[in-house]
Each structure stands twice: as C-alpha cells, then as structure tokens.
C-alpha cells in the first residue's frame, strides 16, 4: 500500500462515506458485543444468524457495502455496548431502528424470516414497560432522555471496523488538528470548550495540555488512563470496547498539541476484550498509515503502546500508573512536580482518562462553542454513568452534565425494583460519597457534587434500596480501600486498617458510641495527611454515611441490633406453664442470662441475652419461645 497522504486520506474518507450510505439501503443487524451481552451469549446469536442466512442463500456482509454487492443481502455487525445491559443480549435492526431484548440464539430464524425480510415485529422480544411496548430503540425511555456524544458510535458501529469510523467522520478531527491548527490553537480550543477530566478530578484538560506544550523536553508522552478500578464503574470499558478509535484519535490530537510522539494506554487486566479491541484498532490505524512515522507527510510521528494492568487499584492514580508502565511497583509519589512536568520516565506527560480523550475529536470537529452548548456553564459536555445496583435498568447512561439524579435513576433507570424504597446512591466509588433522597433534584456536575460531599468520580452510580445498611456499605468500601492500599504512606496503610477494624466491630454489633467519634477523628487525619488522592478520599464513604445515615450506625452500636443486617429483633422467653424447672437452659447459657430455682420457673434476662439459642436447643420441654418484636 502506498503511503497515506492528506489527499489520499480524503479520498479514503469519501469512499467510506459512500460505502456507508450504500449500506444504509440494505437491512443490517447489529448484535451487541459488549462484555455483558457476550456473557449472555451474543456470539452464539451472531454465529446462528450467519448460519440462518447461509441456509436461506442470503449473502452476508460484515464490513461496509461495496458496489458489487447484490441488492438482497444482509449486514451483520458485532457492535459495541448498547448500554442497556440489564436487557441483554441486545439485537438492533436497521433501517427500522428496532431493538430486541433478551434474544436467544434460537430466535435467529424468526428474526430473519419475520423482521429482517418482511418487517414484521416479534412482540415477545420487544421491551415493554408499564404495559406499553417499545419496538423502536429511540422510543425506549431508557434511551429517550440520554444525550449520546461519546457513546454515539457505541452500539451503532462495528467497533473493529476502522472504515466505518472514518465514514462517520473519524480521524477528520486529527487531520484538521494536524494541518489546520497550531499546537497553541488546539490547546486553546480544548481550554475554551471547558472539557474537564472525566476520571474523577475534573481538572481542565486544556490547561493540562497547554502546560505540557510549554515544557521544553526531547521527549513527551501521552498516557491514557484505562485502569478503571472503581467497583461499579464500566464506562471506560465500554468506550474502549465499543469505540476504540475515538480514544486513539483523542490521544493523537493530544500528541499534535503537545509535541509528544509516544502514547501509552494503560488498561486494567480485568478487561481482556477492551485490550483486544484496542490492539486491533491500533493495528488497523497503523496499517492505514494514521499511526507511525511522518503521518500523511506532515512530519508528525506518533506511536501507541498498550500496557495491561496487573490488578492494583492504586494504579489508577497518575504517578502510580506511570510507575507501573515503567515496570515498577505502582506506588504514587509526592507531588509536585506534577505529571505534566515530571511524568513517565521523568518526562512531561499528559495523562487523561479514556472518556476525556474520547470527547476530544468531537470538540475539534465541531468547535468549543458546540461543546459548551451541552451541559452546564462550569461543567460543559456530557457524562457517562454506569448505573448499577438496586435499579430496574442497569446499564450505561450518557446525559448532559447537570442532569438530576432523579432523572437518571427514575426516568432512565426505571426506579427501584420490587417496589422497594430508594435509600441512597453511591457515586464515585470508594473515593466518593453517598447521596440521599434530599439530593435527588440536585444537578449533577463537578461543583454541585463536591459541595454535597461526593464526587463525580469516574461515574459509577450504585443505587441502594431500603434493605441496604449503610454501616455495612461503609465497611465494604473500607475493606476494599484497605485491601488496595499500596502501603507507602502510614496514614493510609495503618489508618485504613484501624478504621476497618472499627467498622467490622460495629457491623458485628460490638461497637460503641466512642467508636463513631474515633472513626470521625481518624477520617480527618487520613484525609489531611495521606500521600495520594486515593488515600485522601478513602474515608469519604465513611464520612458521608455517618453524616446522612447515622441512625444505621446507631442501630449497631446502641441497640446492638440492626433491623436490616440482623432482621427483626427477637426476644427469647420461657413459657412458665411448660417450664419444669430442670435448669438445663441456665447451665447452657454462655451469658449467665438465665436465672431461677430448680423445680421452679426460670427466667431470661433480655439485657444480658445475646439470642444465641443455646437454651432453646437445651430445653427438653420446648418451653422456650422466640418472640418477634414490633
């Protein structure tokens, strides 16, 4: 293949666009190939559908349509995550825009015969809510309120097809940045757009880029943080799986803007599919000449590498991540100097999150003003959230910044299952806090959430219903943080251990009121003195649950009985008419809570009783009753 030039890239784009337009004329079936739907069996659906077509003699194409294809044919695409994971495996049929849910491999015959060939809708595969059927994807309430920018191509494109990405304008932003803009102009455009880091901190991306641009160094690096370790978050995974080229293009633009020629994508080890898709995408971009030396004859060179994480949450922290790429223990270091001055191999480095990079091509193509028209003034653009936990529609949701929690959880998410009551939502994972009923109508953006004691974090939203004890949730997060503490600084290493011990004691109903004070005091110390962001935010779940759900803790430490964790309170009583006064119960009681005279009637002191049931087992006359209290 001859070397790619700007002219030949334009020809390539035009060809791809025509092929895409031509493909729109024949039906196509998009099968979701995100991790979720694959686990539900979507690969089998893909294979079955292909077989069905073969049996019928219907030509099948997997790439974009080309001129020599017959009129009667079908496109089958493995697409990125559609986001509606709860309803998977999902199958989407174009041009009708039909979406089928919970599809099984044996449904393929019917889908082909009825829907694809005659346009008939198969009712049992259609999503229904409150008695209304929604055959078309765009009408489904889950999608209707979303505004998909970053996820626009996820679920509508074949993630592995670079031609389709190009046909939809892909790499056009890179071309524009490379030939029509100076490095300063690119940084200014990103700054003007107000794009803030989507990984948690919310630092203005343009300022970061400009900072790295001003550095004088022989080598600079672009690093993409795909170490999405927050339990309950999978936005970045879905972007890497569903639209890998957008991340690559964003990184390339950052390269042009800062003068970096090497890029690294650090992906969690738990995301094997994302690694595969990125590898394929990089290989295809290299093959076309979009990555490599002297790209399109511009003199600009850019190379991309993938690093797989090895299972350490702390590597999501910038300086730990760069240490890990260097082949070292992933431990954060003291800052300053900041990563833009002293990053990977001590060189100036731009480190952004997956979603941040995926936002960049759109900003360069459509301009900062367009980006600012979405979202709020201080937090422009959209944010993807992973909506999970006790919610009807779990899945991936992209909404403009400033959307309220109520809209996300109730309108899009469909509310709480089984008629239970909403209790709280944990936002931002183990570094975030919980929000309650009173926050439901607060707009979600970087600043409002910060004021409420939470963070947007990477965007995990774990919904919890009334059956969730928040003291237990705090214990869960502390267990996670303690386990993942890298051990470098004392406040985090020792402090989280002590806090976990206290929380475990509390959950076991063995805590005291002083323990709550101790938790607060330890939280303050760790927050003020830990070395890195993860340590400094490790206590947020404890602090916010103590603030909003103190009663859950009080059940454990004052009543020594939590109605959620331990069920309804029970009281053991001896029935006087059945008791023969043998005294076996008193002998077996570990707490010496039973008293009485032999041949008299025995009595249980409920202040001392721990409800172990030893007396119940020992009584030969069945005289002991457990009475549920109101």
């Amino acid at each position: 293949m001859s070397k790619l030039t700007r002219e030949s890239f334009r020809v390539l784009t035009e060809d791809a666009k025509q092929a895409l337009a031509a493909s729109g004329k024949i039906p196509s079936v998009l099968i979701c190939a995100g991790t979720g739907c694959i686990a539900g069996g979507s690969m089998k659906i893909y294979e079955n559908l292909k077989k069905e077509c073969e049996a019928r003699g219907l030509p099948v194409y997997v790439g974009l349509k080309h001129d020599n294809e017959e009129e009667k044919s079908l496109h089958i695409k493995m697409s990125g995550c559609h986001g509606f994971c709860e309803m998977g495996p999902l199958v989407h049929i174009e041009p009708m825009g039909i979406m089928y849910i919970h599809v099984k491999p044996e449904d393929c015959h019917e889908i082909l015969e009825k829907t694809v060939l005659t346009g008939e809708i198969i009712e049992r595969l259609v999503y229904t809510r409150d008695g209304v059927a929604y055959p078309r994807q765009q009408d489904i309430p889950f999608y209707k309120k979303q505004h998909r920018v970053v996820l626009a191509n996820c679920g509508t494109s074949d993630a592995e097809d670079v031609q389709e990405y190009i046909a939809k304008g892909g790499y056009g932003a890179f071309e524009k940045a490379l030939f029509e803009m100076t490095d300063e102009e690119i940084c200014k455009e990103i700054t003007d757009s107000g794009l803030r880091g989507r990984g948690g901190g919310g630092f203005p991306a343009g300022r970061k880029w400009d900072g790295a641009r001003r550095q004088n160094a022989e080598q600079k690096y672009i690093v993409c943080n795909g170490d999405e370790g927050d339990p309950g978050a999978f936005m970045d995974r879905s972007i890497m799986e569903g639209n890998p080229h957008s991340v690559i293009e964003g990184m390339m633009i950052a390269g042009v803007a800062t003068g970096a020629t090497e890029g690294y994508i650090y992906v969690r080890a738990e995301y094997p599919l994302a690694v595969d898709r990125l590898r394929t995408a990089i290989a295809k971009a290299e093959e076309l000449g979009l990555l490599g030396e002297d790209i399109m004859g511009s003199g600009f060179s850019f190379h991309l590498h993938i690093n797989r994480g090895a299972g350490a949450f702390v590597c999501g922290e910038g300086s730990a991540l760069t240490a890990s790429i260097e082949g070292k223990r992933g431990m954060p270091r003291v800052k300053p100097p900041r990563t833009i001055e002293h990053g990977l191999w001590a060189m100036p480095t731009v480190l952004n999150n997956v979603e941040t990079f995926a936002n960049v091509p759109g900003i360069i193509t459509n301009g900062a003003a367009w980006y600012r028209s979405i979202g709020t003034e201080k937090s422009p653009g959209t944010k993807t959230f992973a909506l999970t936990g006790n919610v009807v529609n779990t899945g991936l949701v992209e909404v403009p910044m400033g959307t309220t929690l109520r809209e996300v959880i109730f309108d899009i998410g469909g509310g709480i299952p089984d008629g239970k009551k909403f209790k709280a939502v944990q936002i931002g994972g183990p570094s975030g806090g919980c929000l309650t009923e009173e926050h439901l109508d607060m707009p979600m953006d970087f600043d409002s959430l910060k004021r409420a004691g939470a963070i947007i974090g990477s965007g995990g939203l774990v919904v919890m219903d009334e059956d969730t004890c928040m003291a237990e949730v705090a214990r869960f997060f502390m267990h996670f943080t303690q386990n993942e503490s890298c051990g470098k600084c004392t406040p985090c290493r020792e402090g989280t251990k002590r806090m976990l011990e206290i929380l475990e004691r509390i959950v076991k109903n063995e805590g005291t009121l002083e323990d709550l004070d101790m938790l607060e005091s330890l939280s303050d110390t760790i927050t003020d003195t830990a070395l890195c962001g993860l340590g400094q935010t490790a206590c947020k779940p404890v602090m916010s649950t103590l603030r909003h759900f103190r009663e859950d803790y009080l059940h454990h430490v004052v009543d020594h009985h939590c109605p959620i964790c331990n069920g309804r309170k029970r009281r053991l009583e001896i029935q006087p008419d059945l008791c023969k006064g043998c005294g076996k119960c008193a002998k077996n009681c570990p707490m010496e809570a039973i008293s009485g005279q032999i041949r008299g009637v025995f009595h249980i002191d409920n202040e001392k009783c721990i409800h172990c049931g030893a007396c119940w087992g020992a009584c030969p006359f069945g005289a002991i009753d457990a009475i549920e209290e109101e």
Partner: protein
Amino acid sequence: METTQQILSRFAQDRAQLIAILQEIQTQKNYLSQEDMTTVAEYLDISVSAVYSVATFYENFSLEPKGKHIIKVCDGTACHVRKSQPIFDALHDYLGLTGKRKTSEDGMFTLETVACLGACGLAPAMTIDGEVHPKMNPDLAIAELDKIREKEAAK
C-alpha cells in the same frame, strides 16, 4: 507451553517489560516460581528483589501454583449489593476451603474474589477461566462447578 527462555526471547531486555513478562509467565505456567523470577532478573539485569517486589505488589501474580480452573467471584459494589457474598461462601464450603487456602484439595479449582469485572449490569457475576457467568446465585454457581467436574471426569 513455552520455556521461560522462549518467553523471554520475545521481549526486549528492558526493565519496562518486567510486568508484561511476568504476566506472560503467569498466564502460561499459572504461577511465578523462584527459578523463573531469578531468570527474569538475570535477563533484565536487575536484582531478584526488584522482580520479587513487583511480583508481590500486583494482585494478578501468584507465587504458588493455582488450581486447574480459576474461579473469580466479583465483589464489586454492584455485585455486593446484589448479594455476591453468599455465592463466594457457598463455593468456599463446596470446595472445602478453610483459612487462607484458596485451592481445592484435588488441585482442580482456585477460588478468588475480584474487585469488579465491570460487568455490573449482570450482577452478581463470576468468571471461570476468564469467561463471565452472569446473574449467579449459590446454586447456579455450584452447578457450573459440577459441570466442569463432570467434563474433567469424562476425560
């Protein structure tokens, strides 16, 4: 299976390759032996302690042989609130594991937890040898293990 030397020959003699090399050895041999770590140290011209420090830092590396099939029960937040702990407990009992032992007596299964597979929409989830099993409960999880036992017995 490749020898350690064969694996090493595919990587540059660069310290930055350390994690990738250890990952490859872990994948193929399912643990990192002392000999392997020494060989890697010599190849990269770094101290054995430097290799050991990295091998012990990351969760994915094991210094002891693991079972033939690796089960990971997700204990991310979403799975936790949809009751993943009872699944882990049931498998733990089923495999007769006690204390810190993670591998069953017959060397067939290793039981681990994982902090979020990112398959939260399918919670509670677990993986067997990397394959995701969605919407589990204790009975379904045990049934999956039984299936593997049957297959192994038929071999």
